[in-house]
């Protein structure tokens, strides 16, 4: 017999564990493995014109037809994005963190704007400026009548937009990496006669390589899986094609579903290979500072005056590119309908109409008579569709973000309690599994697999039918967010001192009480942060809801996208541009608030909270004192 660590007699926790295990298995097999496997098999079960199953039909079609074009286009975008995003991303980090550039703080704020608006909001923002009817294009057309209004479309537009949209990770991770460099190594190199640029290439860059490699892989995958920019700007890449094929029928073209499946499997294969390469590279280890007394990095002055001026010009040029859409969107979100419609500040006035309230629309009918459509010009919170989209996105995102956190917290608690056991490794791998799959594959698989009455483990219900699609969206959102939640929450579990659990046990607390009263409060800030970040990402999410493409699951991002698509068509979507601007501002406020709550308020520990509570009390006492004094003065 061996010694038992904290041995306890048989109790109800074993039953709870069993139920939890079965639920977990249900989730993994039913909503991760089976739908994706079904997608994979559908490629080889396509039927030819005679109704016979032809396992290689889709492959032959792929090789013979133009399907390869979508893959090549996506690869082209991914490869070029790696170059452009790294160029811009490394530049903005060096300009704000490494080189001494005047006004770096303001520049940093500008470069970080993509952290508060991304995806559809960002693309439509860029379109508001650069598209055929955009502010800049309109101004250029007015100045140069021969200027093509379609200059901002297709591949170049996608590449341009995504280049600036995808630098958020550089601002987060590369910035941290560069700030972690031991300044003594820079000083040592300078002391040995190296010029600032030599130091940059020989000392600084090698230490940043692991981070840069990770970022490069992530950018490549982002490019490969791009959805909103190609859809809105018109570029034939894999994801928009999958969505198109998923909505097509065999009456229109040859086995569209199987082709969509093949394309999503190709995406998955690329993702798996890239992530495997990345994890192998990460396992090799990083360049760790061996310094015992790390010195803080000091900004490097560019000694060559010409290089210094050029660097400043480049920095501010990038700042203008980053800031112009933001400024324009914010400004125009407060402009009247006439001003937004004309893309001009000289017409109309300032208003809150794009956010709240409505206005009548006057127009001249074919008969020549002036007619009025009452309340046709609406703001974000007065427009039924937009409000519905916000509501749908809000509810689905809150539920999914919360579920992902709950599942991961329970799983992490299990993983840490069973550290040495193989089954805890299995649980961890199962939760990381969706990381290997492009979101589009998961959503496409759900759309096809659950669009049936014969899935027994969901009680034969067609989950793609009607409002039930919302359940599918919630599950898809949740599944997609599991790997990120696991990585973040697991890290917070490491901060729990193992002796705390022993201490609680010694003081008489059972496992549940220990978890709720001791462990959960420690990890709660991280859990809430993960919840907020998950919500932030899902609230404006477009790719997944577009893949489901259901009228019953029209999310906020889909509504924003429709504001671009329908605008101007017989004025059916009046003031869509105004609402688009206001929506982007609303998203910026929500994201900004969440980031502040996560990194500002949420990062405070108990001592900081107690200090601020004391400050609030003191202020309240002061105010009360003033009030009492006043009362006394007033009292005759």
């Amino acid at each position: 017999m061996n010694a038992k660590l904290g041995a306890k007699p048989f109790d109800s926790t074993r039953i709870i564990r069993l139920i939890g295990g079965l639920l977990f298995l249900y989730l993994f097999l039913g909503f991760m493995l089976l739908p994706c496997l079904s997608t994979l098999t559908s490629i080889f079960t396509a039927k030819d014109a005679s109704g016979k199953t032809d396992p290689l039909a889709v492959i032959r079609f792929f090789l013979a037809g133009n399907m390869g074009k979508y893959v090549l286009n996506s690869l082209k975008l991914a490869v070029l994005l790696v170059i452009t995003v790294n160029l811009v991303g490394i530049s903005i980090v060096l300009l704000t963190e490494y080189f001494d550039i005047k006004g770096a703080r303001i520049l940093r704020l500008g470069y970080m704007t993509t952290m508060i608006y991304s995806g559809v909001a960002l693309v439509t923002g860029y379109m508001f400026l650069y598209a055929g009817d955009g502010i800049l294009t309109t101004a250029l057309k007015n100045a140069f009548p021969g200027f093509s209004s379609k200059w901002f479309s297709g591949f170049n537009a996608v590449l341009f937009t995504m280049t600036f949209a995808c630098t958020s990770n550089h601002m987060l991770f590369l910035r941290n990496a560069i700030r972690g460099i031991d300044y003594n190594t820079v000083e040592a190199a300078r002391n040995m006669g190296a010029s600032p640029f030599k130091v940059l290439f020989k000392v600084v860059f090698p230490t940043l390589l692991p981070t840069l490699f990770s970022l490069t892989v992530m950018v490549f995958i982002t490019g490969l899986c791009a959805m909103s920019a190609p859809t809105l700007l018109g570029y034939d890449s894999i994801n928009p094609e999958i969505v198109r094929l998923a909505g097509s029928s065999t009456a229109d073209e040859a086995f569209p579903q199987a082709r969509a499946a093949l394309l999503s499997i190709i995406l998955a294969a690329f993702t798996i290979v890239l992530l495997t390469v990345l994890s192998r590279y990460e396992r090799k280890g990083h360049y760790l500072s061996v310094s015992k007394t790390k010195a803080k990095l000091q900004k490097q002055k560019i000694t060559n005056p010409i290089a210094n001026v050029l660097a400043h010009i480049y920095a501010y040029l990038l700042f203008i590119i980053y800031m112009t859409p933001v400024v324009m969107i914010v400004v125009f979100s407060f402009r009247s309908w006439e001003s937004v419609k004309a893309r001009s500040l000289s017409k109309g006035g300032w208003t809150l109409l794009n956010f709240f309230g409505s206005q009548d629309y006057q127009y001249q009918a074919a008969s020549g008579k002036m007619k009025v459509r009452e309340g046709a010009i609406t703001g974000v919170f007065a427009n039924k569709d937009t409000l519905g989209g916000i509501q749908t996105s809000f509810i689905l995102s809150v539920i999914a973000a919360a579920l992902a956190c709950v599942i991961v917290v329970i799983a992490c608690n299990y993983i840490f309690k069973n550290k040495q056991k193989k089954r805890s490794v299995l649980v961890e791998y199962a939760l990381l599994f969706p990381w290997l799959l492009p979101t589009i594959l998961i959503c496409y698989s759900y759309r096809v697999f659950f669009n049936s009455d014969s899935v027994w483990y969901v009680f034969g219900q067609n989950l793609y039918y009607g409002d039930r699609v919302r359940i599918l969206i919630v599950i898809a959102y949740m599944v997609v967010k599991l790997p990120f939640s696991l990585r973040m929450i697991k890290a917070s579990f490491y901060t729990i001192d193992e002796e705390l659990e022993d201490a609680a046990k010694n003081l008489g607390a059972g496992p549940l009480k220990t978890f709720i009263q001791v462990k959960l409060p420690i990890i709660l800030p991280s859990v809430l942060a993960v919840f907020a970040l998950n919500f932030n990402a899902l609230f404006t999410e477009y790719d997944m809801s577009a893949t489901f493409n259901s009228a019953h699951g029209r999310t906020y991002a889909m509504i924003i996208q429709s504001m671009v698509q329908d605008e101007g068509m017989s004025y059916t979507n009046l003031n869509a541009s105004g609402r688009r601007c206001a929506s982007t501002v609303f998203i910026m406020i929500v994201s900004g608030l969440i980031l502040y709550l996560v990194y500002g308020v949420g990062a405070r520990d108990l001592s900081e909270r107690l200090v601020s509570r004391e400050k609030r009390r003191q202020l309240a006492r002061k105010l009360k004192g003033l009030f009492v004094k006043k009362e006394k003065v007033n009292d005759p």
Partner: protein
Amino acid sequence: MIQMKDIVVKFDDFTALHKINVQVNEGEFFTFLGPSGCGKTTTLRTLTGFITPTEGRVFVRDRDITDVPIEKRNIGIVFQSYALFPTMTVYDNIAFGLKIKKLKKPEIDQKVRTIAKKVDLSDEQLAKAVSQLSGGQQQRVAIARALVTEPDIICLDEPLSNLDAKLRVQLREELKKMQREFGITSIYVTHDQEEALTLSDRIAVFNKGVIEQIGTPNDIYNHSATEFVCNFIGDINRLSDQVVRRLIDGGAKLDPKWHHYIRLERVHVNETPKGGAQTLRGRVESREYYGLYIKYYIDLGSQIIKVMERNDGVHIYDPGETVQVNIDPGDLMSYAPAGEEGQS
């Protein structure tokens, strides 16, 4: 009061404890001392209930508690890291165990404030987060939390190991004072022999899962039962075969095959030999100045012997100086080599 009988703890193929037998008296300050991995913490965890022994029984006041759950053993623990709950205030940390016991609020409040007073924690400190306290204050909170539930025994698992040297000495004294005040039976785990010697009424020295010796600090230091104990406790000189031979030639009755040790302070320099002390000639190789004492490294030809002399400000010897080294064979601790039985 505590009796651990024939305790064996096995983890798969590894035996962590081999038939441990310990008896601790009521009110005693008892220390488990030994190097890392010797089994002292495993013994403590067996006593507190975190580990169920493979063999043997644990008794407290003649009651067999081997199968009693952790929370029902009424043993308070002060952990190495203090294990203070970082999301709770000092007050809530101390009150945690009382709340679990579902005591009424006024009673909890009264108990928390009483114990806080005893360990010198102010009302202001009770309202603070534990991270706002110094290391010493945190230790007092940990002690208060362990004592507030009025346990029969308090176990302290290396509570001073994370502190700097100065604070360690200061808290050591406070700890002893507190233990005397509360009069509670205390089990202290440490790898620091100085801590063990200064704090304990009795010490159990552990090595490789067995207890080498149980005794008072004086027994352990001056009458080390085994060669391991004698080496582990304090600084010591093992005499070379040549030095032993010279002592035998001078009339000492020593077995040349055995290992002979002498404490640094038992060797004297340039003193008139007392009793049966024998004199050897040596040359000062180097010296270390400690203020109250001076440590000399003296070359006896066949070995460098360490000597700790009281600093009287007059008799200070420089490196290179020839000195007389006095060793009394009666001060030696001698052990038979491994495989042979015996100790003298």
